[in-house]
Each structure stands twice: as C-alpha cells, then as structure tokens.
C-alpha cells in the first residue's frame, strides 16, 4: 500500500479490524502513532468512566435500600389496588343480587293499550240512547224505526 491509510481505514485500525490496515501499521510509523494515540485516548475514556463511577460502599448500600424500598412500595400498592378492585366487585355483586326486582318496562305500544281497571266501570250516557231494547225502569228511545214526529214513549213506568 502506498502513502497512508485513508480515514475509514485508520478507524478500522483503531478498532483493530481489517487485515490490510493492520499490515500497513506494521510498516508505517506515522499511521501507527495516530492509531495508537486514538486507542490510548479511548482506553483513557474507559478508565475515566470507571473511575468516575467509583463510589463508596455506603452509596451502594443506600442505593440498594432505596431500590428495595421502591420495590416493596410497588408491591404493597399493587396489592392494595387488587384488594380495592376485589372489594368493588363484591359490593357491586351484592347490590345487584339484593336489589328488589321490578317489572320489566313495557314498550310504548303496550302502555297505550293498557287501561285502568276502573275505566271499565265508566259508562257513557250515549249508551242509554243507543240501546234498542226497552228495559223496565229505563228510558227507551226508538231511534232507528221512528218515523218523522214520532212521539217519545216511556217503557215500564211510562208517563202518557
């Protein structure tokens, strides 16, 4: 390979990939220096993360307690919610089972057809007028066959 590694080849060399780049590094001090410098910086980055994340034992114990407390709190809350849900279902069931039964609502057509029992006792005055057969003690009107100027006759206790 003539000259130096291209940018992406150098990145492959930093990541320790690619045989061609590796071979070139063996013969080119400039590319090798750059790759090694980048590798050192990346290793330094890893060390700095690990160093920064180093905390005293007390921190880890405190964090663990906090996590377990939140887990326990969540468990208790879940149980309480489950209990509350169960209680609501029981109460609803009890209300449904114990409430008095009412007749099923009628449809509008059925209601219009329905008549009060007392209604049958009501009598229209025209019933007497339309009656065609004389009865004792009642007025009798002969309507159908009465000629013009027919006089009113009284059935039973008729007054002449």
């Amino acid at each position, binding site marked *: 390979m003539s000259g130096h590694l291209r940018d992406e080849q150098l990145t492959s060399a930093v990541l320790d*990939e690619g045989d061609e780049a590796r071979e070139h590094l063996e013969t080119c001090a400039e590319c090798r220096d750059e790759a090694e*410098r980048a590798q050192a910086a990346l290793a*330094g980055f890893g060390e700095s993360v690990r160093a920064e994340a180093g905390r005293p034992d007390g921190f880890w114990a405190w964090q663990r307690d906090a996590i377990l407390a939140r887990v326990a709190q969540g468990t208790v809350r879940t149980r309480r919610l489950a209990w509350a849900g169960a209680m609501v279902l029981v109460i609803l069931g009890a209300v449904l089972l114990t409430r008095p039964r009412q007749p099923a609502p009628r449809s509008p057509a059925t209601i219009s057809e329905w008549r009060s029992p007392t209604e049958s006792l009501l009598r229209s005055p025209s019933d007497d007028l339309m009656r065609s057969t004389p009865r004792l003690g009642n007025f009798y009107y002969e309507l159908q066959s009465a000629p013009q100027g027919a006089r009113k006759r009284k059935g039973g206790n008729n007054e002449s």
Partner: protein
Amino acid sequence: MESTLTPAKLLAQANASAGIAREDFDGIVRAHQRRIYRVLLGIVRDPDTADTLTQECFLRAYRSRHSFRGESSVATWLVRIAVRLAIDHGRSRRNRFWRQLFGGAAADESAAGSTAAEELPDTGASPERALAAREEVAAVWAAVDQLSPQQRAIFVLRFAEEMPLEEIGRAMQLEVGTVKSHLHRAVSAVRKRLATEAQKHKERTEERKP
C-alpha cells in the same frame, strides 16, 4: 459477575412467597448495580441522573421479570433496560428544554469532560504527558457528547464496559453489522476531535516558544 438467580427463578419463588422474592432480588441488585450505574453515568454524564435511572432500571426489571425468557444473561437484560432508559432520558424534550433554558449546555459538557478526565488514575507518566492524556480524554468526552444517544450508548458499552460486539448487539437489540457501523461513525468523530485538539495544542506550544 453473573448472578445464579434468574428473574424466572425469582418469579417461581415470588409465587411461593413475596418475601423470598424480595430477598433474591436484593442479590441481583447487589451483583449488577455498579455496572448499571457505570453504563448510565457514561451515557447521561450526571451522577444524580445516573443514580435515579439505576433505581428505575431495577424497578422496571422487577416489574417485568415475567417477560424474561433467559435468552440472554441477566446482565445483558439489565443493560438493555438501562440503555433504553438512558436513551429515553436523552430524548426527553423537557430535559432538552431545561438544558437550553439555563444555557451553557456546551460549556457544561466541556466542564463535565474535564472533570471526568481529572478522574484518570495516576499512571506515573511525566506531568506533560499526563496533561496531554487528560486533554485527549476530555476531547473524547466532548466528541461523545455530540453523538446520538444510541451511538453514545454503543460507544460506552464498547470502551467503558469492554463488551464484545455480539453482546452489545443483544443488549441494544441490533445486528452486529449495525453495531459496527455505529461504532465506526463514533470513532471517526472522536478521531476528528482528537486531531482538532492536537492542532490546538501544537499552536499553543508554538506560541509559548520565544
């Protein structure tokens, strides 16, 4: 370090007694909390946020332990939850709003990079070399801050956790090729930043010369 207690086992025990499950979960937290905190700190760059998200991560793990099928290790499963939380946190509009409102996001990032670089252990190098190393690490941090949350997560898992690409793929639910591609872009960005910083350093050194 892997715990022998799997969430599936926890579930079985939780059915028997919630108390035992909590005790076992304590073992899982104990075994993995440092790693999860480290991953989150590398991504979110704020100790308080990393702590809050670590707690949230374990809480979510406990709640979703039923969904764990044992296809990956508990560590990978936890890292997956942590990375998702960190990415969601980074995407949060509210978070961005407050950061922009109080300004100096770039300045904060730069300052945080310097702080992180100061955490480097003493390797016994010369003061000049140690200073240069700190500047380079600060430059890496500054470059990492410019990456997308997903690329940043991959970068942290690779270089801070030294996870193999396959494991990163499982944790991020990505193909290995996609992980490689993200890593290439991230390292290219870091190299560009390093080159810029090196140029600045060279110019400063030349200015100081009489």
